[in-house]
């Protein structure tokens, strides 16, 4: 017997406005308890919903992410489901074969978790701490910039070009990340600064 259907059918018979608790008053207390024990709770009832945008193509479909735990309450949040946002004017809840599998991107076995370092000639990556990585990269950048920066051209015009180190910016970072990256690269005088739009 399908308990959920039978319950829905019963409520319909009992008329609208009959609260579930009144079932007990009508002598169905045991059936109610049995039903609760039997039916698996809806997976998403205890999750937190967050609005986001699909990171793939430029249609930028609205998505809803469901997590166990709420970041806004300072909790650890584990995304358990992602679906299309029906309120979004463009996709109206639909997703393509890529967007429908977005949770697999978030949970990919090849998501990177730790800074890694490959020594010259080595055949493997090894863990490095963030602090060591930042210190080392900043040092490499500073030394190269100081050695190779072109301050003026032959005519003595300030040209401020650093051509020996380049930066390739992403196509899926936010505008805000892009602005921070822009400030960093242009202030250093990196002229070999481009993004995916080029290709």
């Amino acid at each position, binding site marked *: 017997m399908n308990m959920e259907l039978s319950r829905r059918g019963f409520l319909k018979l009992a008329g609208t406005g009959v609260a579930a608790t009144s079932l007990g008053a009508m002598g169905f207390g045991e059936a109610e308890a049995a039903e609760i024990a039997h039916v698996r709770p809806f997976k998403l009832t205890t999750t937190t*919903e*967050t609005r*986001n945008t699909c*990171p*793939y*193509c*430029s*249609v*930028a479909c609205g998505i809803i992410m469901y997590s166990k735990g709420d970041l806004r309450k300072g909790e650890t*949040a*584990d995304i358990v489901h*992602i679906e299309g946002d029906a309120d979004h*004017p*463009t996709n109206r809840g*639909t997703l393509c074969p890529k*967007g429908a599998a*977005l949770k*697999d991107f978030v949970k990919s*076995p*090849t*998501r*990177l*978790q730790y*800074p*890694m370092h*490959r020594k*010259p*000639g*080595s055949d493997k990556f090894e863990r490095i701490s*963030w602090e060591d990585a*930042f210190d080392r*990269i900043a040092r*490499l950048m*500073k030394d*190269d910039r100081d050695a190779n920066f072109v*301050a003026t051209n032959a005519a003595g*015009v300030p*040209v401020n070009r650093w*051509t*020996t180190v*380049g930066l*390739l*910016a*992403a196509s*899926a*970072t*936010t*505008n*805000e*990340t892009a*602005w921070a*990256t822009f*400030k960093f*690269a*242009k202030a250093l005088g990196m002229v*070999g600064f*481009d*993004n995916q*739009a080029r*290709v």
Partner: protein
Amino acid sequence: MTNSWTDIKNTDLVVVMGGNAAEAHPCGFKWVTEAKANRGARLIVVDPRYTRTASVSDLYAPIRQGTDIAFLNGVMRYCIDNDKVQWEYVKAFTNASYLVKDGFGYKDGLFTGYDAEKRDYDRSTWDYVIGDDGFVVTDPTLQNPRCVWNLLKEHLAPYTPDMVERICGTPKDKFLKVAGMISECSSPTKTMTSMYALGWTQHSKGSQNIRGMAMLQLILGNIGVRGGGMNALRGHSNIQGLTDLGLMSHLLTGYLTMPTEKEVDFATYMSTRQFKPLRPGQTSYWQNYKKFMVSFQKAMWGDAARADNDWAFNYLSKLDVPSYDVLRVFELMYDGKVNGYICQGFNPLLAFPNRAKNTKALSNLKWLVTLDPLDTETSRFWENHGDFNPVDTASIQTEVFQLPTTCFAEDDGSLTNSGRWLQWHWAGGTPPGEAKHDTYTIAQLFLRLRDLYRKEGGAFPDPIVNLSWEYADPNNPTPEELAKEINGRALSDLTDPADPTKVLVAAGKQVTNFSQLRDDGSTMCGCWIYSGNFNEQGNNMARRDNHDPDDTGAYLGWTFAWPLNRRTLYNRASADLQGKPWDPSRKLLEWDGSKWTGYDVPDIAPTAKPDEVGPFIMNQEGTARLFARGLMRDGPFPAHMEPFESPVANVFNPKMRGNPVARVFETDVAQLGTSDEFPYAGTSYRLTEHFHFWTKHNRVNSALQPEFFVEISEELAKEKNIDNGGWVRVWSKRGEVKAKAMVTKRIRPLTCDGKTVHIVGVPLHWGFTGSAKKGFGPNSLAAFVGDANIETPESKAFLVNIEPSTAPKDRGASA
């Protein structure tokens, strides 16, 4: 896009050429389906392959890749010959009537002024006749043989239906059907939309492909109207945003441009950028350039940018070449002239053409830093993966840092979609392991460098130590803080010029939008075209009102569109010279006698009189350009050019190879193949189950499309004894791939200039990391040459050979 995804429902005819929206932009393509179902709109697909977009089309026409200009020129010629022109629109809103200087001409596939040695044109004759009053001389009757319209007709004359068939391989009857359907949209009450993507951009003349369609749309009166426009379907979720924000070698934010060495000071820089109107009474909005530029310099360097130091103009690099684009940088790297490289969310080893060259280039680096949420081939370019990455690991002396970043699900911020909507999103998940936001990583590197320069001094520390970095926590700028900087604010009280006692914006407050920016240092603004995104009303990018009055598809209350929340660019062109909509059922704007009203934010001053001010306010002319003057390097009109690697010679000039002004590096010339050795026309494309090199890390998508393949016709398979599902080797002058052959009816041989042309389709998406089987991509084959104007590589047209083969070694998935 000039319009938006949701606007496509308003169209009568969709032309998908240079793209495959049903597979690459599926949920945007639904608006094509809506237009077909609800308006009876029709769909034309012109493509070398019978794609899934083609499978739901009303008319499909095959075309050889790299010949779109000939096709589009043929359609324009057809429309003009058959009087299918929206005359009132063309005469009022384009430069058709403008007279062109004597001396300009076109012969043997070349425009006037070609210098073969420099591979460049002297473009001095590609310009208007200027009268004594300083304005362009025009002939509104279009009788003068030197007016743009007559020069255009002359230029298009050779592109007959027979010529289109000869160059493109499109059967003449199919071409005529396409041209006939398109020409019907010259009616003021019929509209066509163009949806294109990398099928048009990835050519050595990509910019001219797009220009060809833009001109056709102008002739038909389809720019600025509902259901019309030029709609670039951008490939990535924020590629529009990164372009708008100027993360490119030749750009600053909001399409301000980097100075060159010739611009020795700020005044010289400004002298070529404050464009005066070329016709009386026109807006020429770039006259405001200085306000945006000074506000930008203030956003970058705050108090260090002052009137007395040219607003810190010398803090900017000055370019000695047009751009240090990715091809140039990888050429320099290949040459051993680049020491360090930072790749943020980008996989150049698989994305740039000529993979062997990329591998060699990366191996020349002293150090490489990658920032990604997923493992990438680029970060492991030194790792040997048998046939899939046959490198000698021990000999590669590059130090590599692979830094883990958060992904979309773990950060707040905005992305700009193809329709220019800046949509805010929120973090919902905890980053894995020690993954960090890019903003944190960038801040850490910046703060360390700034400290080092403060302590040690060094090469020109000024732009670094003075960079504005006013965040509550300098270690971790928040997305809101950065968004507010992009919007801009008043640095001192902004008073009303008409009434100095009236304060319009108080010091420290966000400006409402870019109309409040000043050139005297009293405002700052990171990116003027985005201004209005986060003002005193709050974060407009987070707005979620999805009401759409009268179902126009505009959604003005949904997030924020640049500029000024405008949803359709050039929307003033949707109304005639009296300000009445061309099509009352598709009204966007209307002149009410004193101002513009309607469904969208007017793309013109709200009180600009309809018969006086032209709709194309960013142009000095106030009109759109059918003749581009000297603004494009390869011609003021689009002219047929073959790809650098083509199975047939250019019929206009058999000696001319590719685009005559495209830059080609010495090392790459020797690596260009010819059709004797490489007889087949290769092309590249996406599959609907995958997104670039990301989804091969997803188990679902890897299961849907597990393995690399190449697609060929039944005819070629028979000729070369290739079985469906059998292994083949495909090789070009630059490299080879091994793949399973997919023998299909979707690709058919074409006949071009009397010769049978076979096409070999090579999808991207595979590499040697992730959950899918290991595979190759088209960049192992494609040539290292870019578009003459913007240097986008010619990844859509290259030459290959093919033969039956055996399987590559070690093709199991890595994870």
